[in-house]
């Protein structure tokens, strides 16, 4: 079974803090993705990565950056957290381009 894990289920941070969200997949998948999910807006793609050290912007990259130093790990970084970044963050991975995406359990981030 594909397993995508995220470092925290719930996280509370203060405005201006630097926040790291970690995602690990154990199936040697090429592609990894970061989404945020908000009521009424659905899932929106923040960044994705086809390979180690490679990244591409999604639909809403502003205020976020990513890092992929190892194939199995994809990190989402909020350089200076703001209250409008309070959301559910979902990581996903897929084996090859165009394949099914498998999602992690999500991290619910609250920025106070």
């Amino acid at each position: 079974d594909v397993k995508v894990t995220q470092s925290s289920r719930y996280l509370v941070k203060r405005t201006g803090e630097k926040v790291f969200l970690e995602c690990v997949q154990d199936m040697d998948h090429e592609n990894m993705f970061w989404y945020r999910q908000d009521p009424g807006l659905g899932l929106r793609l923040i960044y994705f990565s086809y390979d180690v050290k490679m990244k591409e912007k999604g639909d809403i990259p502003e205020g976020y950056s990513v890092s992929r130093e190892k194939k199995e790990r994809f990190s989402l970084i909020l350089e200076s957290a703001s209250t409008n970044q309070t959301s559910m963050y979902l990581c996903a991975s897929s084996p090859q381009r165009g394949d099914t995406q498998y999602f992690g359990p999500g991290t619910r981030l609250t920025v106070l």
Partner: protein
Amino acid sequence: QKEVEQDPGPLSVPEGAIVSLNCTYSNSAFQYFMWYRQYSRKGPELLMYTYSSGNKEDGRFTAQVDKSSKYISLFIRDSQPSDSATYLCATRTIGNEKLTFGTGTRLTIIP
């Protein structure tokens, strides 16, 4: 206008009923269509994956795509309380990694 429109519900039906969930989309270049199920406080999991038009059946679930009307449907037969979840439709074009999601429909099956 959103590229994929989905009625958010909530939708409540009695156990055993047939459930119909629907999405419409605007981009005729979309070729791959998916339905994800998301339980409360969990990540989405893939239910059905279809290419282009037609029907696909898997147990109690049937996915239907009508490209002429840009309409995507998921039917659940003999619905069970364990089917209570949010259902998300998603689509993408050929050669594009980006999935475009509907906002999700929250479904409750009443025992």
